[in-house]
């Protein structure tokens, strides 16, 4: 909906480039563009102002030593990018483990920020690294938040300490305290305390959060914040900083298409590092935070790293592996595989969004906006109207079968014909894949080659642990 900073840059800079030397006025004009773009990305005004002032100063200094307009334009862009990365990641660090376990992590944030899901993701992340986390259900407010945490814990084989059913009953401070004691007694090396969502302006609940903190002495308090948040990020993060304090920030729902400028506001105003990025409803959709990626995202520059990852997620789980196995057996690419690919494709998110992630796509904005997503849906409908035999062996598709399929899917016969043709082309392409030209998942779609993604190799099973908590987790898996 907004022109990204990169497309603003493209136009500003192409005019800069055609001029010999960049003047002070040019810098001011560019800074005005940056200002507007950052505001559209939800960066808070005060942060924008100081950021832009810094860019103007650095650019003026740098220009003195530059020759051509082209270099100068690129230099400014680099200054912007580097400054963003510096603010976002200047103080990046990992979770501090307690000298005497358990390491206690407490989550805090607004209602609906995604704390409970995040608790599960953190637990999985650390359990996968050989830790023995215990989840503690201290959100006794939201109806069935406790049940939610229990379901989450069960799905990843991490035990949940939940002595109270919640729904407004029970004391979250006591539960948190008892949870940590339980963890100590049972030798869990990590405790993750889920808490109820609360507003920064709710004095009672902020005090309660402080009480939980004082009861469990967390090694880390993580402020969980939705990447879609706007200007309120300033007031709310300050309220949590004053009310309970926090040591790090987690951004959630990064699989959406919000620019996420609030990350810049929070990092710059609270001086707390953004530590994790949460990007999906699956408990594995979680990673440490990469400042470079966030900088590209705020700039709207095309986040290739994330694109590659999403592609990998969508394809290597089922589709690529299945395809690779088929190839290994020397079998052919069928319409069923094609359908799998299409489903994976729509799982990855909207096509135009995906294309928009590619670098340099600012110039293709028009084409991207015109990209017909309905195409995938229609194609799917056609393939779904075929019988399994037809999908496996499209050669059987005679005229009457084709018209039946057309009727079943509500499409024209010509569209069915068209699909069959495209499929044959894709099939040919897949044969080339066998020779290693591009990753299997991508070929049939006629997409440009992507950075190759290897199916992840499952870590070797270690021998069972002597620690009872750790052993319980290993056995649950």
């Amino acid at each position, binding site marked *: 909906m907004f022109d990204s900073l990169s497309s603003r840059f493209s136009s500003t800079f192409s005019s800069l480039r055609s001029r010999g030397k960049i003047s002070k006025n040019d810098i001011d004009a560019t800074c005005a563009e940056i200002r507007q773009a950052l505001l559209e990305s939800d960066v808070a005004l005060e942060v924008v102002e100081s950021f832009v002032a810094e860019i103007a100063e650095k650019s003026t200094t740098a220009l003195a030593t530059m020759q051509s307009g082209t270099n100068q334009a690129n230099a400014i862009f680099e200054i912007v990018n580097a400054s963003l990365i510096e603010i976002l990641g200047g103080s990046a660090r990992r979770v501090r483990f307690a000298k005497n376990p358990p390491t206690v992590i407490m989550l805090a944030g607004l209602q609906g920020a995604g704390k409970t899901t995040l608790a599960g993701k953190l637990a999985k992340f650390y359990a996968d690294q050989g830790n023995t986390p215990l989840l503690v259900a201290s959100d006794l407010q939201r109806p069935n938040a406790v049940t939610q945490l229990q379901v989450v814990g069960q799905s990843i084989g991490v035990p949940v300490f939940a002595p109270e059913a919640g729904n407004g009953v029970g004391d979250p401070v006591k539960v948190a305290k008892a949870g940590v004691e339980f963890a100590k007694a049972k030798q869990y090396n990590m405790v993750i305390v889920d808490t109820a969502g609360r507003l920064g302006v709710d004095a009672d609940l902020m005090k309660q959060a402080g009480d939980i903190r004082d009861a469990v002495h967390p090694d880390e308090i993580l402020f969980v914040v939705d990447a879609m948040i706007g200007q309120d*990020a300033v007031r709310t993060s300050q309220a949590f900083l004053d009310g309970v304090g926090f040591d790090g920030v987690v951004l959630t*729902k990064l699989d959406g298409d919000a620019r996420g400028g609030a990350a810049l506001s929070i990092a710059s105003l609270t001086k707390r590092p953004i530590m994790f990025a949460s990007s999906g409803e699956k408990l594995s959709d979680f990673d440490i935070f990469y400042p470079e990626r966030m900088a590209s995202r705020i700039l709207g520059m095309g986040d290739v790293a994330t694109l590659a990852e999403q592609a990998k997620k969508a394809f290597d789980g089922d589709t690529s592996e299945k395809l690779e196995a088929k190839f290994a057996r020397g079998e052919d690419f069928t319409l069923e595989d094609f359908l799998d690919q299409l489903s994976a494709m729509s799982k990855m998110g909207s096509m135009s969004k995906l294309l928009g992630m590619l670098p340099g796509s600012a110039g293709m904005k028009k084409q991207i906006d015109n990209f017909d997503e309905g195409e995938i849906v229609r194609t799917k409908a056609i393939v779904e109207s075929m019988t399994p035999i037809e999908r496996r062996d499209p050669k059987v598709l005679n005229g009457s079968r084709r018209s039946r399929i057309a009727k079943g899917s509500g499409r024209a016969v010509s569209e069915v014909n068209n699909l069959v043709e495209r499929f044959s082309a894709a099939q040919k392409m897949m044969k080339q894949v066998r020779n290693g030209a591009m990753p299997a998942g991508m070929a049939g779609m006629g997409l440009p080659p992507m950075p190759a993604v290897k199916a992840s190799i499952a870590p070797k099973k270690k021998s069972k642990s002597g620690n009872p908590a750790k052993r319980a987790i290993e056995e649950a898996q």
Partner: protein
Amino acid sequence: MGLFSKFIAKIKGENSFAPADWQDLEGELLASDIGPTLTRELLEAGRKVKSENAQEALMQTLTSHLCDKSRQPLTNPDGTTVVMIVGVNGTGKTTSVAKLASHIKKSGSSVVVAAGDTFRAAAVEQLQTWGQRIAVEVISGKANGDPASVAFDAAKRAKEMKADYLVIDTAGRLHNKSDLMAELEKVKRVVEKISPVNEVLLTIDATTGQNGLAQAKIFSESVNVTGIILTKLDGSARGGIALAIEHELDIPIKWIGTGESEGDLAPFDPDAYIQGLLA
């Protein structure tokens, strides 16, 4: 004194607003999340304001950005009124379903709700707990089941029962996931085999920044949103993105959410909202 009245007072008094005051006003407008474009428009309009009618003129400028569609709830005169609640994750859908059902019940109509979020862990139980609290029947299927079939069964049941209202909860989904948006379309389509869906309410969290526009746009394209529930207005966020949504997409805000209890839902009041933007 709110910034707005401060602004008006200044214009009235000396008819000269110092540059620093303009900066303040810009800051306040931006801080409400109405967005940089609308902010610039409003500042330009503000500069043209004459001293005598300053207050009126500014209110008018802001108000002129609201959409003029009716904010009345849409109903079905010939049977069960079906309301779907949609939106991105965590914006307050399930809570709003409960609040709305409670409101309907209090106003004397019969209502059932459908637990259409079969995806998120314990979402069905969450609505069931609400159902017990407000004494409203909850129609649910099995967890991880097909949301469309739950909604279909609920629509059938509501019709058989001759319930005045059916309110359908749906799973949270990010608007950029086309498979999930297609699923939502299917839910609506399937329900419409039984009864028309009269109202589709989109929950927008008041803390949402400029992304709210994309949310409203894509949800509308997909299931034809007929109104907005602006949730969590009890916090420090002013919910200015809803003004931008009204302005750009012509979708009326119908309800506001102001807390976590069933009574914390109110019809949208344009004047109070506009004043609150600059509070």
